[in-house]
């Protein structure tokens, strides 16, 4: 590799720009001062304790896990068959159908959130939980369609046909032959969809009510009223979660599979 000083300087600055703000959060989470300060004075784990004692945050955390999990699984159940149909058959209007399935990713999140709020909560008076779940289902679906779709496009469907000739029904061949061979894509799309659903703000922001508030929304509310290192501490915990997920992905699929 030849020296490219200009390039490396820019790149190092960019990485500093990306990483330093995170480091500041980590450092401030240990400061004793009740308002966020950098550099910190003293050293304490109190703010971490405080995270676990703040009911609204803990409750939201579990709600978010629940919502993201159910929504992503629902998106897999609906998305895998659809992606399969789009990859396997030359259906009429295939491109349009595919765009339609991907469209929740093109429509601004606040618009989806607001539309669902109007439709589910105002018009049909359904519980907010269902609205939140549907919203997260919608934003998860395009990830499944795109990632599982691209694994399916790389699949040699003659293995499925061979299974038929050997006596498999369609459903059985799909379960025993197709699914095992798109496992990696399913796992990658699950991870992506789950992480994005868990982190989503715009949709959740409209669909929040008593006892039903997603974690990012809770966090946002918390920041608006109390500016203390509890937020830093929770952020650090979530970042640790992200690192763990990234480690799992790297060990199983390789990070390249989700970028």
């Amino acid at each position, binding site marked *: 590799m030849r020296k490219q000083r200009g390039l490396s300087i820019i790149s190092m600055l960019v990485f500093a720009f990306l990483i330093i703000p995170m480091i500041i959060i980590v450092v401030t989470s240990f400061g004793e001062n009740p308002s966020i300060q950098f550099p910190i004075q003293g050293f304490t784990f109190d703010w971490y304790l405080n995270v676990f004692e703040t009911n609204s945050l803990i409750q939201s955390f579990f709600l978010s896990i629940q919502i993201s999990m159910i929504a992503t699984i629902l998106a897999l159940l609906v998305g895998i068959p659809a992606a399969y149909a789009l990859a396997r058959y030359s259906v009429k209007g295939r491109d349009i159908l595919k765009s339609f399935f991907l469209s929740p990713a093109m429509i601004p999140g606040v618009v989806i959130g607001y539309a669902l709020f109007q439709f589910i909560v105002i018009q049909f008076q359904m519980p907010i939980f269902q609205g939140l779940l549907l919203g997260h289902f919608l934003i998860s679906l395009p990830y499944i369609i795109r990632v599982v779709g691209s694994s399916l496009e790389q699949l040699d469907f*003659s*293995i499925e046909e061979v299974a038929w000739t*050997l006596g498999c029904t369609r459903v059985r061949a799909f379960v025993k032959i197709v699914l095992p*061979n798109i496992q990696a894509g399913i796992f990658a799309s699950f991870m992506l969809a789950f992480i994005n659903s868990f982190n989503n703000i715009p949709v959740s922001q409209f669909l929040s009510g008593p006892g039903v508030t997603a974690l990012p929304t809770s966090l946002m509310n918390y920041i608006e009223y109390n500016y203390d290192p509890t937020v830093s501490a929770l952020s650090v915990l979530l970042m640790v979660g992200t690192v763990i997920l990234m480690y799992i992905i790297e060990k199983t699929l390789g990070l390249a599979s989700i970028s």
Partner: protein
Amino acid sequence: MTYVDLKDIRVSYDGKNNILKDLNLSIEKGELVSLLGPSGCGKTTTLRVIAGLIEPNDGDFVVDNKNLTRVPVHKRNFGMVFQSYALFPHLTVKENVGFGLKLRKEDKTTMNPKIQDILEVTGLAELGDRYPKQLSGGQRQRVALARALVIEPKLLLLDEPLSNLDAKLRVQMRIEIKRIQRKLGITSVFVTHDQEECFSISDRVAVMNNGIIEQFDTPEEIYNRPKTEFVARFIGFENFFNLTKQGEKTYTTSEGHMLKTSQSWDDTKLVATIRPDDINILPKGTEQDTNMIPGKVVVRTFLGKSYQYEVETNVGKILVNGPKETAYSSGEELLLQFPEEKLILV
């Protein structure tokens, strides 16, 4: 006695163009029949109709006097070998081969010996626990074959199974396939576009063109007596020229040269053809006789085992192969002799 019968099969993918046009084919029990033809002529489509992967728009498909046209693929019990082998990447060789047996709810005590037997027959006995990725091309081919055979299919279907192998292995594998097919006595349909491969392996050959079967005969018959110009061209006949009938087995060229043939046809206007190898070259000055046409060498090329000449004659350009011992140079005049039993009318 006909075992497999395709009757007036018509297939159209888009509802407009017919890919198979009222195709008929009858295969006898235990026979290995090849479908031979250029790429795109409908060989795979025919095979997929037989397998049940495509339902024909018209026509009937009968095996052993049972009409199977509407029977779904998974109930037909045919073994199929795909061009890409289509091995299940997530299963070992044994699991690949045992896949069909497991579906038939066979128990371990009958299943394992069957798997072991077929692995031995196909020379895979040592490789049972490997995954497809860990096999060579030839080994994958054998697994695909074993997997199709172990279910004791009524019919074995092979779609260009050798086209992904290198030349040497291809010859080896086709002998292998023939041996196994003979041994098990299994009725087989073999798709290929390679005529040598096809002739060496088949009991009978169906030459396909554009959705129909042009000729269905033994390899010898097709090689020696192609019935149509397409078949002749496809199996290596080169020189085509028009003849007019004068009498029984006697014809003249447009320039009045007399040609005798061993074939007898009723049409008055015909096309004759002959392979470059089958023409004899006589030096200029030989006494002119029937079945001789004079010409002049245009180009000479060296083929290794012989010379090939492009000869200008009054029936057009004729390709001739001549022995290495005597080399004619371009511009030289000579006589071409067409042996009557080698001159084919189409």
